[in-house]
């Protein structure tokens, strides 16, 4: 039985070091479940880090929460899920705050909320309520269209995004984007899923197939002619 203090520390460290990689998120989620007897404590760690760290990190924690809920449901330990449901507004407030400094994170929040709704962690009503809250936070006060004309830019609550953080965020977003695109083409390797899908969905044999056949045949003839 690990020392509770050490567990808290390790978990906190994992949260602080989250990245766009799903492996990091899954490792942290698995760690939380391994130490499920400390669930309240670990949940409070999550809230604490959400309110303390950079906007980038908060976005990563938001994605992590989705993994945590998935792992909890899978292992049948719904306490984590219950606590997320209870505190979801606080989470949203931390990741996409009212003052607009988290404008970059609004999309993240939306996506994760959708995911949680699909997993039935959150009710559709809850999600729509949160959505209305989000709408107003979509835009930073430093945005040129609504900036005060006295020229004060880029200072909201002292949260200035430095260059390194911006670059890091760009990298992480790129990584996440690649992962999401996988859903377009990924097919189950099992059995004949791809075959079944193609059988049901492919169009009828038609003119374009004949045309491709003709072009291929001509190309092959050329190869035979000239070697």
């Amino acid at each position, binding site marked *: 039985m690990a020392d509770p203090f050490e567990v808290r520390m390790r978990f906190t460290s994992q949260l602080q070091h989250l990245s766009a990689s799903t492996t990091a998120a899954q490792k942290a989620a698995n760690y939380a479940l391994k130490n499920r007897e400390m669930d309240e404590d670990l949940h409070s760690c999550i809230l604490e880090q959400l309110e303390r760290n950079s906007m980038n990190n908060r976005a990563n924690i938001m994605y992590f929460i989705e993994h945590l809920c998935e792992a909890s449901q899978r292992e049948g330990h719904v306490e984590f899920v219950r606590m997320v449901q209870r505190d979801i507004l606080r989470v949203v407030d931390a990741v996409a705050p009212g003052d607009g400094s988290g404008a970059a994170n609004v999309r993240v929040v939306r996506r994760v909320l959708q995911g949680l709704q699909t997993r039935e962690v959150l009710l559709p009503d809850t999600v729509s309520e949160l959505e209305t809250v989000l709408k107003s936070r979509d835009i930073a006060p430093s945005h040129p269209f609504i900036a005060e004309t006295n020229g004060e830019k880029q200072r909201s609550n002292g949260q200035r995004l430095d260059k390194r953080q911006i670059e890091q965020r760009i990298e992480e977003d790129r990584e996440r984007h690649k992962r999401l695109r996988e859903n377009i083409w990924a097919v189950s*390797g099992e059995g004949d899923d791809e075959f079944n899908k193609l059988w049901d969905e*492919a*169009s009828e044999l038609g003119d374009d197939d004949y045309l491709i*056949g003709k072009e*291929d045949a001509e190309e*092959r003839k050329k*190869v*035979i002619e000239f*070697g």
Partner: protein
Amino acid sequence: MAPAIPTDALVGPHPSYIEVAKPYMLQSAIDKCLSDLQMKESREDAMRLQGVTWIDNVRRSLQLPVRTFNTAVVYYHKFRLLHGEAEYNWADASAAALFTACKIEDTLKKSREILCANWNLKIAPGEHLSPDDARFENHSKLIIGLERLMLESAGFDFRNRYPQKLVVKLGREVGFRKEAEGATAWNAGLDLYRTWAPLKQSTTTMAVACVELAARLHDMDVVEQLVDRGRVGYGKLNTSRGQVMETLLDLLDLYTHHRPSTTVGPLYPLETFINIRITLNQEASAAHIPRYALYASDKPRNGVEPPSPLTPATPGTISPGTAAPTSAIGIRGQNGTVRFMLDAARARGEKVAVDRYHKAEEEEYEVEVPVTVEVEAGGGAGGGDRRRVR
């Protein structure tokens, strides 16, 4: 002595070697490559089958679609035609082929993920590793290094084939049942990639052959129902009985000699395949269909027999675009830049234009030159001396 051609007046382009991507290769060219590499048939078979199986297993575990499998296998085959056995390990080549194919087919996977997937296939779920485990570090770099060679072997030709879709369309057209003949045709399509057919045949030919074989395996009345009939007629589809026959026989060779390593093979007894083979052989003899398609330059001239697929063709009948021997990758680069082109006609045209600069023109002709003969004791030759003037 040859009169000097004033070549300083004509400064030609920097010498370069053009590698033309071949969208198709025929069996004779494939065999020549293998014999140049001194690859024994049994060894080649083993590497080919193991590699394709490796690629299939790993791609399924990564949930990659079949078109990525197709492209990876073709790269794997082409790579092995240019690189000798001693140069690489077949599993690395399979991994690199799959990695390259993932990029080309826009189904991105990191090289670590591919190696990790392969690793995890061999161990229990509880011990599965994650791709960022340090043990994949160096191996992953090796794979990335091989990627360049993969692209070169394929001649940077990204025109890829996807016969499975056509197999499905044709199958539906001729009334296959999805779970029966349809599934068999699909799996035959996967098995087809274990042969050389994907390098030799067009998409249409491959699809037609798979459909016909499935029909035969399910005892359909093939001749009546689907060989060269109606909407699946060879004219409309632009294939020929000869091409289809070669492909069918390639498949049957695979099933009769390597039945356990295939998908469809284990589902039927060996005799079934042998019987189908006999029927087809009879048809081929009666119709004088050669076992393998030939290049125009391979065809018999003046009674000279075309080279059989197993003997290397004589020099001069091999096209300039055919793969060079093993270490050619390095050699061809020594004489100038290596350039990759897709259009063979254009490459020929360029060669003709460029050669004018690089070949000194020489002519030999004989001229009668009157020579005043100083009559010596033996008496000179009558008439003029003939001298060769170059």
